């Protein structure tokens, strides 16, 4: 069975008021792959996600999601933003918010069916929030809130899921739970792009790493994409700090240029 392309990005460039955020970005992701998007602050990770999900129109280049333009696509794309800019005192419960992920699937003029409720229940269970389903958002901790939005993206049952730093503010146990969730999603053939600053995580739990700093610095299996040379180019002076903390164990035995095994 020929593998299908879930995402194709071609010569993508994005500028904000004349300042370049992404330049000439080209890569593609096969269906079912798990890709970590890494790079320093301001590298354009969030911008890339916003283009893929169709929130931002690129000046140049093309994006195809399962062969479709993001603006005309039929397939849902799940998106967990880096920061949810919502009114937390809005009168909705956790379950209501997750149900919002179903709105497109339900279709016009429909109310939630038994099946929709079941999907919401499952999504809540997968992120461990079933007990908090009836809480309001202003009664949640930051990490619980983040998991609510992950559950909402899951409820879309999208074949492509974009998660922008989902581990920020999430404790170690929940992080591990989400990573296990990603394993289950992968078993179902869901393609995941996940932005993170945790290079160890990117190296250990992902099929591919997209190292970004306005341009693509490297893209490939973690062993090839993350090495001192590429990291130096992506992070510049920041690299030293990183190497002191935990980087050495990551790059110690990998050589980049001829590193194809």
């Amino acid at each position: 069975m020929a593998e299908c392309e879930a995402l194709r990005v071609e010569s993508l460039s994005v500028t904000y008021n004349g300042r370049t955020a992404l330049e000439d970005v080209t890569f593609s992701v096969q269906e079912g792959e798990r890709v970590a998007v890494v790079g320093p602050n301001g590298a354009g990770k969030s911008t890339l996600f916003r283009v893929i999900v169709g929130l931002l129109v690129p000046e140049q280049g093309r994006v195809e999601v399962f062969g479709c333009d993001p603006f005309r696509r039929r397939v849902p794309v799940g998106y967990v933003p880096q920061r949810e800019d919502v009114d937390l005192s809005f009168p909705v419960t956790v379950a209501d918010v997750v149900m919002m992920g179903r709105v497109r699937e339900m279709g016009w003029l429909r109310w939630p069916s038994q099946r929709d409720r079941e999907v919401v229940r499952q999504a809540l269970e997968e992120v461990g929030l079933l007990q908090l389903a009836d809480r309001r958002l202003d009664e949640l901790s930051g990490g619980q809130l983040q998991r609510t939005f992950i559950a909402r993206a899951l409820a879309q049952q999208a074949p492509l899921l974009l998660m922008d730093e989902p581990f920020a503010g999430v404790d170690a146990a929940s992080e591990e739970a989400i990573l296990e969730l990603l394993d289950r999603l992968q078993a179902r053939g869901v393609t995941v792009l996940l932005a993170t600053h945790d290079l160890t995580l990117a190296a250990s739990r992902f099929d591919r790493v997209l190292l970004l700093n306005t341009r693509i610095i490297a893209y490939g299996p973690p062993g090839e994409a993350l090495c001192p040379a590429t990291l130096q180019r992506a992070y510049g002076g920041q690299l030293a700090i990183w190497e002191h903390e935990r980087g050495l164990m990551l790059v110690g035995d990998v050589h980049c240029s001829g590193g194809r095994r």
Partner: protein
Amino acid sequence: MNWLLEPLTYPFMVRGLIAALAVGVTCAVLGTYVVLRGMAFFGDALAHAILPGVAIAYLARWPLLAGALAAGLVTAFAIGSLQNRVREDTAIGIVFSGAFALGVALLSTVRTYTTDLTHFLFGNVLGVSPADLWLTLALGGGVLLVVAAFFKEFLVMSFDPVLARTLRLPTTFLRYLLLVMLAVTVVASLQTVGVALVVAMLVTPPATAYLLTRRFLPMMALAAGFGLFAAVAGLYLSYYLNLPSGPAMVLVCTAVFLLVLPFSSRRRQILGGR
């Protein structure tokens, strides 16, 4: 019991009551979005901006509600298209005061200026003709149908516009639809509440309901209940104390809000304190 039934022996009072009930419910239902989306100032502006339309229709002897509807729709689209360009409250302030001034100036050319202006500003529920009543019911019913039809889409739009866009909902269409419904609701309320006070009917019942509920649909339903109560109680107040109907209904709304306020844990959120 008699004091309850006596006003209803007059057909104009019955018509007024039905119109007030329709307005109470429609305003409260749509007002739930107005409160949660922070559109109160917008609603007020829209209400004032239909005055020139009413004035022109009045001078030209066209049906008043038709003039109001035309003006309301024009304003809704004007503000809707300005929304993304100028700071919203500034844009609204410009359109709103300009249009209101024009309306007052036009009406001042008529001899019976003060009475007419008072009716438009504060409502004249006793002047509801059978034709007016049908139109009010049709407009109010139309708004309620649209809300029911797009209920979950409006909820997503109001809570999280970014999600609405990633779900590929037609957000521009829905936004304008909401503005148009707001204009229609204001026009339907013209005769019972008047343009100066309609924002209170839009905002106060949902704000009261917000204090008492945790979820969206109960908030909307409770708001509709408060709206109905304000309509009935306001109309009787207006009948027995000889008050204009608009202020009477609004005073009931405000009284209920103040009554509920001490019992709510959420008063901080709605009054904006910390």
